[in-house]
């Protein structure tokens, strides 16, 4: 995780238009959003920082069991994400879809993709250029909570909008 954060910070610092290394979209890129990223990506008090996006705007939305429907709460989070992305055009985003462990592996990959796409579609309707958004599904491979009851499952059924430097294509 340290490596990918470093790579992402580097990309940001150099203001590369297309930082498309594997690190940017690598499997560990999720750690950036998933951890809230603390002070790594700027200060929370700086509204143009990824840290502000992750913690104050909110980088994730949650889903019901086997669903990809966006709740009103999710929509309001995504409205704020869209606004932030409009105000910070130097970032693109990778939208990660995740599922809880209560499902088969392949289906959960497809379900995670459906969730990520629901978020991408919504952000596009709120004015984010499609070229700034990509999706990926991790299925049930990257839980953030590890218990085996609904309190954890609810947190794992998520989509995380992971910022990357670069305005996209």
């Amino acid at each position, binding site marked *: 995780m340290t490596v990918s954060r470093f790579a992402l910070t580097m990309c940001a610092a150099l203001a590369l238009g297309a930082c498309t290394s594997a690190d940017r979209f690598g*499997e560990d890129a999720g750690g950036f959003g998933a951890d809230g990223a603390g002070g790594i990506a700027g200060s929370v008090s700086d509204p143009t920082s990824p840290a502000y996006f992750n913690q104050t705007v909110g980088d994730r939305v949650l889903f019901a069991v086997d669903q990809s429907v966006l709740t009103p709460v999710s929509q309001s989070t995504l409205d704020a994400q869209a606004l932030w992305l409009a105000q910070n055009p130097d970032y693109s985003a990778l939208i990660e879809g995740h599922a809880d462990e209560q499902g088969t592996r392949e*289906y959960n*990959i497809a379900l995670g*993709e459906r969730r990520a796409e629901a978020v991408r579609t919504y952000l596009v309707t709120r004015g984010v250029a499609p070229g700034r958004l990509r999706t990926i599904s991790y299925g049930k*491979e*990257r839980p953030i*909570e590890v218990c085996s009851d609904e309190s954890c499952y609810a947190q794992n059924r998520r989509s995380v909008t992971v910022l990357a430097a670069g305005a996209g294509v």
Partner: protein
Amino acid sequence: MKWFLVLVLALAAPVTLAQERSGPLRIEITEGVIEPVPIAVAPFIAENAAANDFARQITAVVSADLTGTGLFRDIPQSAYISQVTDFDAQVQYPDWRAINAEALVVGGVTLTSDGRLIAKFRLFDIFSGQPLGEGLQFAGGTDSWRRVAHKIADQVYSRITGEDGYFDSRVVYVEETGPKNDRRKRLAIMDYDGANVQFLSDNASIVLAPRFSPTGDRVLFTSYETGFPQIYELSVGTVVKRQLDVQAEGMTFAPRYAPNGRTVVYSRSDAGNTDIYKLDLGSGQRTRLTSAPSIETAPSFSPDGSRIVFESDRSGSQQIYTMSMDGGEPTRISFGQGRYGTPVWSPRGDFIAFTKQNAGRFHIGVMRTDGSQERLLTASFLDEGPTWAPNGRVLMFTRESAGADGQPALFSVDISGRNLKRVPTATAASDPAWSPLLP
């Protein structure tokens, strides 16, 4: 590795001492054996001193293979009335009948001066008082002693059950290490019984669901190496891999070979919609087989290559469907309570194995290819992803335990639901795929 069936061992015409059964010894696996049949795997005779260790080890593996099926019980040597000291000696049937041995396996092992291992065996039906098939002899290098043992056990199993064996086979799977929220995965391959583990990848990227080619020399799998899940083909011998269906956008996953080994079926996600495609490995040509807005994934070919079974949530929940190898209108075959996924067609063509999720529990089950005669074989917090033994009579699958320290392990069960047991692995393991019987 070259296998030589050096010779069929001649044996004098048997004298039938008693006929207490109407026919030869035969176990029908599908009937679900309740009580293991007692047999005697007599310690294989070392025919020269250099073969001592091999004789002992081969005997142990033959016994473990046979008793591991749950169909047999190996009578301990301490109970023998007569010892086997000469491979060619006349069998004293009354001595074996007296200890209720239904079958006797006699073996001999030689290590030649040029380092070749030669192992031979004979199988006797004690109650019929005659040999069951001819004596056979196998030869190979000393590093192949396990395979020699598995081949002998396959012969014994096959002669008694009438089914093909499955012991001389391998399993490719995913080795898992690290905590649940930072799991590391890498591809591994081992003998069916957990021996001879080798790794086929590092654990830098997530790898999922390896699948053997029909000839067992190649493996399909899904890796996040590019950052996105993509399907790859790997040569088991050289461990060289190549990415299939290369594309800038989208995800590919859940690949499986067609029986011809030249076509791959898999899932591809595009704009949030997952459908089934097939890829011609020679030409690289991709053909879309489904186009519904629902999730279509986990495709598996019938052994004759004419049909594909897969899962879809087009009805509103995960269910199993079959369709022509060229796509077209699918037929739903699962109609019970709950959700059905990961269907896999038996290599014999008679059953489809699946994962079922119902009322908070997971099951491995089998059904006829039209969906009838559904039978659940297991139940746990999380069972998934069955794979067939090469003879279509045993399934291996992933069982994951619950909780923060939960870990996956490999388990096997026979199609009558009996003999559920853990397959030994040194670390946590998931996504097994059983090879065909080795050549």
